[in-house]
């Protein structure tokens, strides 16, 4: 199972990577939207976790890319700060499957990831 984490904060990437690697997933990362777009076009992932605010290409554009351009059903979890409902709703409208607020609980992350992957 391969997961792409799109997030510009090094520590957040490391934290997610650490948890998910321990859970047995293969984790790849992209620290800006451009890198993320390129990776998504080139490779297949079983799940994408994306921050909303990133340099170059934001999280919403990433979701748009996956759903509308690449026409893929890859599950997407959005990372957002608390109290950002409008953007989260926007993300859901574009086709995001779930969201996590920062700072995230590692167990919650693990459960949400597992659930989406099992669903598929």
């Amino acid at each position, binding site marked *: 199972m391969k997961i792409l984490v799109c997030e*510009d*904060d*090094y*520590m*957040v990437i*490391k*934290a997610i990577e*650490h*948890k998910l690697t*321990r859970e047995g997933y293969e984790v790849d990362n992209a620290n800006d939207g451009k890198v993320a777009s390129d990776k998504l076009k080139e490779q297949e992932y079983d799940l994408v976790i994306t921050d909303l*605010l990133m340099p170059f290409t934001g999280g919403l554009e990433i979701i748009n890319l996956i759903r509308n351009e690449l026409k893929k059903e890859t599950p997407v979890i959005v990372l957002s*700060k608390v109290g950002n409902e409008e953007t989260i709703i926007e993300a859901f409208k574009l086709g995001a499957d779930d969201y996590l607020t*920062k*700072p995230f*609980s*590692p*167990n*919650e992350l693990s*459960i949400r990831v597992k659930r989406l992957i099992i669903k598929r």
Partner: protein
Amino acid sequence: MQSGDSSSGNDSPMTMDEALDYYKQTLEESVLMVITDEKGKITFVNKGFCKLSGYSAEELKGKTHRFINSGRHPASFFQELWESITRGKVWEGSLVNKKKDGSLFRIKTTIYPFVKEKGKPYHFMALSKTLEETAPSETPSGEDFFKDRFLSQVGHELRTPLNSLAGLTGILKESGINEEQRTYLEKMDHSVRLLSAMIDDLLLLSRMPDQPLPLELKAFSLKENLNNLFQILEARNKPRNIATQTHIDPNIPGLLLGDAFRVNQILITLAEYFLSFTQSDCIKISANLERIAGNHCHVLFSVEDVLNKAAGEDPITEEGLTPKPFAIAMEKVNAIIKALDGEVIANHGDGESLTYEFSLPLHIIKPKEKPSEQKKTDRDLPQNLKVLVAEDVELNQFVIRKHLEKLGLSYDFVKNGYSAIEKLKTENYNLILMDMQMPIMDGLDTIREIRKDRHTAYHDIPIIAFTASISENAPKKCLGAGADDYLPKPYNVEDLKEKIFNLVSSKNNKQPDKPMHKDFENNSSENGQKKLINLDYLNQLSEGDHEFSASMISYFIDNTPETLESLEEYYSKKDWKALRNAAHKFKPQLTFMGIHSILEDVEKIEQSAYKEENLDQVPDLIQKTKTICLKAIEQLREELEKLNKQA
């Protein structure tokens, strides 16, 4: 229009009916009832009383209490009793009477006078329960012993599937269902709890008639409560073609503290009685504000129905209408009202309608308390908690696991007390959830074992005991063995959360110096400085991987000075957008290191830069952030050293 025989229940939807019938029957057997006229002459005795006294109903009818007087009470005793009830007051006390065979029996009696308008009582009803005979020769008979055993077993059999139902309903509610489904589930949940409480009472009342009812205070909305009740009654009464009305005084404060469940039980028991007893086609439940005294309000509840015919004649003495349900309803309701410090205003049968009124004091919760209270448990439950759960039943494990996951707690499961102790020796936990019924080593023994040795690292970990036992002694036993709190099954996630929250926060208050996580959680660092960092979250993330923790800390130490400089630089260049981004990005890093004291300031910097408002406060905020971060970095270096030693 529906036909008259619709009560045969062709679509009676709830198993609650059956439970209620069972409930009534069992209670009836444990209640003794005598009705007298205004002069004290017996007009009615029930089977229970005949059986106990040894007299037949015919022998007792027309006699006064003197007929069974044991001579144990002084004349003044009866004088006071009589004075009290003829003035319309409810009397309560214990009486020793004489059986037909000359032996004595002791009963606990409540006498209800029935008053016409404001006049004198026109009859009295005495409801009694037998008290344990004090004579030394009397020992519990074998029959009683088996009845006890049987009831306890039936109770357990009934509760086990009910617990599962409650647990699964809870999980379903969390599983991404739509609003309509949620409404149904809420109702289902409500019914399950009601049924569960009824079984509890059934067992409690039939086994220990003189034990006080356990109460549970909770914040609740009376309006919501009545609405739920309305829906339940509506569903139940549909086949009987009886309408239900509820009315709630808008002046009643929105949020109250009290035992909502008991209030419901009183109302539902009364409603049940009214519905099964009379020919009415409409029942009305209302709640009116009587008065507000300090932080309490007194709510006057009334249950009434409009009788179609039956004018004038008192329904209780009417031929063909058994007073049985009434005896139970009154007995039960009175006990609960009393337990709730309420007052019965038994005003009965004025010809047209039956009315039962009672007043209850309820604590008012100030509106602003509610959100903060809710958020408190939502937000402040520490994220790093690790819980050890000792529970052998798989379905229960499943339910607990779901709950803990929902609370964001990490956990380990063991299936018996022995494994729990083994686990405690090797791992650190912040909390133990312990089922009482387990194989090999049960909950009580395990708790005692954990608490026994003060030199163990685990001897003072808070313990919450789960118990499915309805025995009143169960909580006492748990707490006596050393548990800090207990939860009767079935419980809901909110209760669990609240108990965990209470324990964890009180534990922290009580022992501020006690490190929960041995490695990190000291309140002050070694040089006596105030601890600016809190690595709980990082520890939770690392799951014991010191290398990971070390790498995160190193990253922070290496990069933060640069971040701080960039904040100053963007401010001096008035590059608000860059300042906002830098502040925004800094926040998660502070969170990882648990430098909570300046998170708010950094948020302020971000907001000021975003809105371009209050920009003059920014230099101070940056300065403060810088000072604290540099100190925090020193503390982080200490931690890093420790980690490297361990790794």
